[in-house]
């Protein structure tokens, strides 16, 4: 297209684009490429120690010497991501279904469910740590009514389910919004017609509305999957990766920055996480796109 600005003004356009582009290259492109490069070096976080290329030895370390660590971490990651993706979308669908009805306080409830999105991981993590404290916390109080108790985040059995719960709690509002937007595009007459045929409310939703919001389902599922495969900041606050919550992101962070300071191995774990995320997301995308086509 022709540029309406000419001469000196044209130069101004180019000049003003430079800073943004430099920032993009330096802090967008370079880091994304260099994770791979760093994974072939023995970088440490210790100042003054020379680094050099070490070939694939970091990957040998991860997959051979420490196979158990990466397997455990893969297991934790997959349980975490699969549970979060499935549950978060299922609950959000239900919430969106209800929140698109008209009843008193519906706006207030929407606001409330969405609120955690602004609170951030520190506040959310500390809040739930207090709630799930084994003595003195309200969750322990409720359990004691049933004559039982738990170590919550300290238990190797319950820590992961609880982390999954908090992750869903924090992101549910967002997924719900995606579905609400989807449901709002479905023509009202369709639902009305089905109700006249005597379909129950839920069946009505399942048979009529749900197939219509296939694109929203794609967005909701992909986002939850990609997000939960990559995230680790909430886990960092809640358990720091102990008790079967050592997802790949957490594993990478701990290897690079805590306890050990091996950036090379950390970058290798980061690459595994990246590849896993890409593979899962692409597979899901392909499947869901085919499903969308079948629905329409």
């Amino acid at each position, binding site marked *: 297209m022709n540029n309406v600005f000419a001469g000196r003004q044209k130069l101004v356009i180019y000049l003003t684009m430079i800073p943004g582009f430099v920032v*993009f290259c330096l802090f967008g492109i370079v880091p994304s490429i260099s994770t791979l490069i760093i994974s072939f070096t023995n970088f440490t976080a210790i100042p003054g120690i020379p680094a050099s290329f070490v070939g694939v030895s970091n990957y040998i370390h991860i997959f051979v010497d420490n196979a158990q660590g990466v397997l455990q971490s893969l297991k934790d990651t997959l349980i975490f991501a699969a549970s979060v993706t499935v549950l978060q979308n299922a609950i959000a669908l239900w919430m969106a279904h209800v929140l698109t009805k008209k009843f008193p306080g519906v706006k207030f409830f929407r606001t409330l469910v969405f609120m955690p999105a602004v609170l951030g991981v520190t506040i959310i993590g500390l809040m*739930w740590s207090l709630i799930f404290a084994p003595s003195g916390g309200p969750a322990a109080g409720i359990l004691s009514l049933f004559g039982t108790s738990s170590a919550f985040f300290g238990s190797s059995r319950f820590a992961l389910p609880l982390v999954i719960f908090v992750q869903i709690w924090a992101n549910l509002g967002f997924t719900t919004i995606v579905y609400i937007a989807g449901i709002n595009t479905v023509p009202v007459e369709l639902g009305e017609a089905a109700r006249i045929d005597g379909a129950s409310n839920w069946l009505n939703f399942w048979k009529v509305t749900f197939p219509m919001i296939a694109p929203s389902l794609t967005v909701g599922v992909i986002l939850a999957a990609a997000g939960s495969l990559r995230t680790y900041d909430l886990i960092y606050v809640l358990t720091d990766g102990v008790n079967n919550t050592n997802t790949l992101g957490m594993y990478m962070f701990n290897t690079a920055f805590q306890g050990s300071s091996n950036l090379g191995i950390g970058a290798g774990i980061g690459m595994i996480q990246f590849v896993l995320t890409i593979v899962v997301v692409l597979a899901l995308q392909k499947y869901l796109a085919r499903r969308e086509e079948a629905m329409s």
Partner: protein
Amino acid sequence: MKPIRRRFSHDWWRYLFTLGLVVIILYFGPLVFLANISLETESQFLTNSMSLPHPFSWSNFAQAWQQASMGEYFLNSVLYTVVPTVIALMLSLFLAFPISRQYVRWARQLHVLLTSGMFFPVAVIPLFIEARMLHLYNNRPGYIILHIEDAMVFGFFLFVGYFRTIPRELDESAVIDGCGYLRYLFTIVGPLARPAFATMGIYAGIQIWNDLIGPVVFLATPSLFPLSRGLFVFYGTSASQWTLLAAGVLIAAAPLIIAFLLFQRYFIQGATAGAIKS
């Protein structure tokens, strides 16, 4: 049909009861719990934490504010949020306008490249190495610079779409009137794109404000910490003083909740636009 049935959905009371109960318990409950213990005295908390505070002990808030040096952290957070957000907003405006108008060479390719920035892998390790190389480690300007890119790419994505809604004829008449590019951008396009700016600013700003991994990796000196890490440090050092901790968490949450209630619309727009990002 009676008017009330028209205003509310069929069986509205059932929705109100089931969903309302779940949401209130899970989403309002935790805040109420925090508020409750933040107003209790230490001894009351130890004897019966679940009962209502009696007497009300407001001093926890003052003590938490002081003991966690929240004032200092708060100022850092404001600085770290406002400055990179504003810079990112400018930079993405400079990139998005000419690219959306295809006023530059390779506009289509640049568009694809910059949008793909939203899908780049999390690269905290290389960024850490880079930060040390470029002397951006453990100082305020560095921390600010490190947070520009993310917000900028998001802004770019948002603005490119928005500028399409501004008619091209406006550019042409501006040029005919002899208005320069920068003046045009700031006095005509800027005001028109205010909703997009607000969406980008609110959403990106809150992301930066809440970042915890960033300050853990890029900052070392406590006086440079933002509130997110300051609060986490406070948790580590005073985990046995729940009443203070609850007050601290509430102090940190209050501005966010207020901002959210005021700018909810922009924030939700930002979140939906950033959908493909996350």
